[in-house]
């Protein structure tokens, strides 16, 4: 079981309120991703759940029991760190065995669990090596192995993939997702990468300056961002946000249209602009459009290829039903 409840959790460092009072509930078995720009307080929030950071005020409950004053090791949570945080002086086997040794589990059970974890994480051949002799991906797997054997109520991941190269990151992302499907244990995952958040999460918590901007499934966030910040943060490339008279035409302070919700023509359309850089990804092409008179630079995503070159005139037409409208307060207008 791993139901986690945050009740008016608040963190103040000196004179700075990093996290204003915040409520959040995480259901058992959920894969929750905290996402936000760096410095938004997502790691601090995770560390508060872990018990590595004290709460200034508020309370945290795991499975109904108040753990606010409970030390990290007694909360039944396992954490995977960005730096892996393996014990460099111990072999892989001893690293994985460590939490079990601390818990006083007998040797036979330890061995069985180590072998099972090593097998599922492809570490069997490396059990007698030290962390220094492993690659980044292998080290991360050891860190996960060390977390698994504890059979925690929830796993906490603090940007676990940011030290890996791009190709490995995609692979490890899948492994973590498969692990979640297999174990069905609550996982809280912190990242600044919205692509990771979108692909992995059951539920995304978007944070900015310690404040929860929106909580929802990836598609809820994509289709109905609650405010301009979420609209701009979720989705790649970013949503085009247009202010001024064009927005006023739609009774809004700001209108948002995603790059994939614009149709392109070389002859006619709602907005006229000039082609800047085109980024060819093969399946997609992102075209940067300048001089529309609406905003500095609009991004358009088209599938396949189109015969435009730098400096050409181009016409864009938004899909009316995919347009997002925001009021003067930045909030979405239904």
């Amino acid at each position, binding site marked *: 079981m791993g139901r986690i409840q945050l009740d008016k959790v608040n963190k103040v460092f000196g004179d700075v309120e990093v996290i204003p009072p915040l409520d959040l509930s995480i259901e058992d078995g959920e894969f929750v991703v905290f996402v936000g720009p760096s410095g938004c307080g997502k790691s601090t929030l995770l560390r508060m759940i872990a018990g590595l950071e004290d709460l200034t005020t508020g309370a945290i409950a795991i499975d109904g029991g108040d753990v606010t004053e409970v030390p990290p090791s007694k909360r039944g949570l396992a954490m995977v*760190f960005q730096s892996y*945080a393996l*014990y460099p002086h111990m072999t892989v086997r001893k690293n994985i065995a460590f939490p079990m040794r601390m818990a006083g589990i007998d040797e036979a059970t330890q061995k069985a669990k180590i072998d099972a974890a090593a097998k599922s994480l492809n570490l069997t051949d490396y059990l007698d090596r030290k962390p220094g002799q492993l690659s980044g991906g292998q080290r991360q797997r050891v860190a996960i192995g060390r977390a698994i054997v504890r059979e925690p109520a929830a796993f906490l991941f603090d940007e676990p993939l940011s030290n890996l190269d791009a190709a490995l990151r995609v692979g490890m992302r899948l492994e973590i997702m498969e692990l979640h499907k297999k174990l069905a244990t609550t996982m809280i995952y912190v990242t600044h990468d919205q692509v990771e958040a979108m692909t992995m999460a059951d539920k995304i918590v978007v944070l900015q300056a310690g404040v929860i901007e929106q909580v929802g499934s990836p598609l809820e966030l994509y289709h109905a961002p609650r405010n301009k910040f979420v609209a701009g943060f979720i989705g790649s490339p970013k949503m085009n946000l247009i202010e001024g008279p064009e927005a006023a035409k739609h009774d809004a302070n700001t209108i948002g249209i995603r790059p994939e919700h614009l149709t392109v023509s070389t002859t006619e359309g709602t907005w006229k602009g000039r082609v800047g850089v085109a980024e060819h990804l093969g399946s997609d092409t992102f075209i940067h459009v300048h001089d529309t008179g609406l905003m500095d630079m609009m991004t358009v995503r088209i599938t396949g290829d189109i015969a435009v070159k730098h400096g050409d005139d181009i016409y864009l037409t938004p899909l009316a039903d995919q347009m997002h409208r925001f009021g003067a307060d930045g909030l979405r207008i239904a």
Partner: protein
Amino acid sequence: MAIVAETTKFSKVAWPVLAWIVALVFFFPIFWMVFTSFKTDADAVKPEFLFRFTPTLENYTNMTDNYDYWRFATNSIITSVSATLLCLFVSVPCAYAMAFNPSRGTKDILMWMLSTKMLPAAAVLYPMIFMAKSLGIYDTRFVVILVLTLINLPIAIWMLFTYFKDIPKDIIEAGQMDGLTTWGEVKEILVPLAWGGIASTALLIFIFCWNEAYWTVRLTTFNAATLSTLIEGNRAPEGLFFGRLSAVSTAAVGPIVVLGWFCQKQLVQGLTFGAVK
């Protein structure tokens, strides 16, 4: 090209020669001391006998017969070892706390500790002697151990703090998540990871304790007197007994030179730590 080549050739010869000269200058007093210790007091003061003399063990036998060298040596060993251990016992937890749970005042506390080393020892000499006497601990091993510990504590904490700072905090936190108590963190993570640093610190503190003269000479007379006091006692009043003095000095520095020789690598690492990285 030719100039560059010549310069290289020149520096290849010049630097080692210079290094040898410097090394010999530094080594000469020790060399002289050891040589003199095998001369009679009469020969010792005559320059013509600098290299040519009849070696004698008289000074050494005299030393063990008349001065009870071993009593002083025992005191030196007991006080140095105890002070080193006590120093580590206090400084390891202290440096641990400052490295991993720093507060706003940590930097200031470190500076304050260092500042105590800038205080002239003479300034507190009389209060110390007065206190030791009125507490009835003057000329006891206890007071020597206490003072040796206190004067070396700032250095021990600074050195250990530097070593501990290099251990990623994540590893300590992972340990906390895995169920380690504070003592467990020190035992299972800190000591194994900072072993080299702790050893260098211990070695250096031991050497400082062994060589300490200012305080040991002034806080002891007989019972707790260390080898430094023995050397001091062979000085002045009776005249210049260089042979005897040299023998005592050689016997006092001998153990530490041997220890230092075997632990050279650790020592150099300890002294230059943080400077080159």
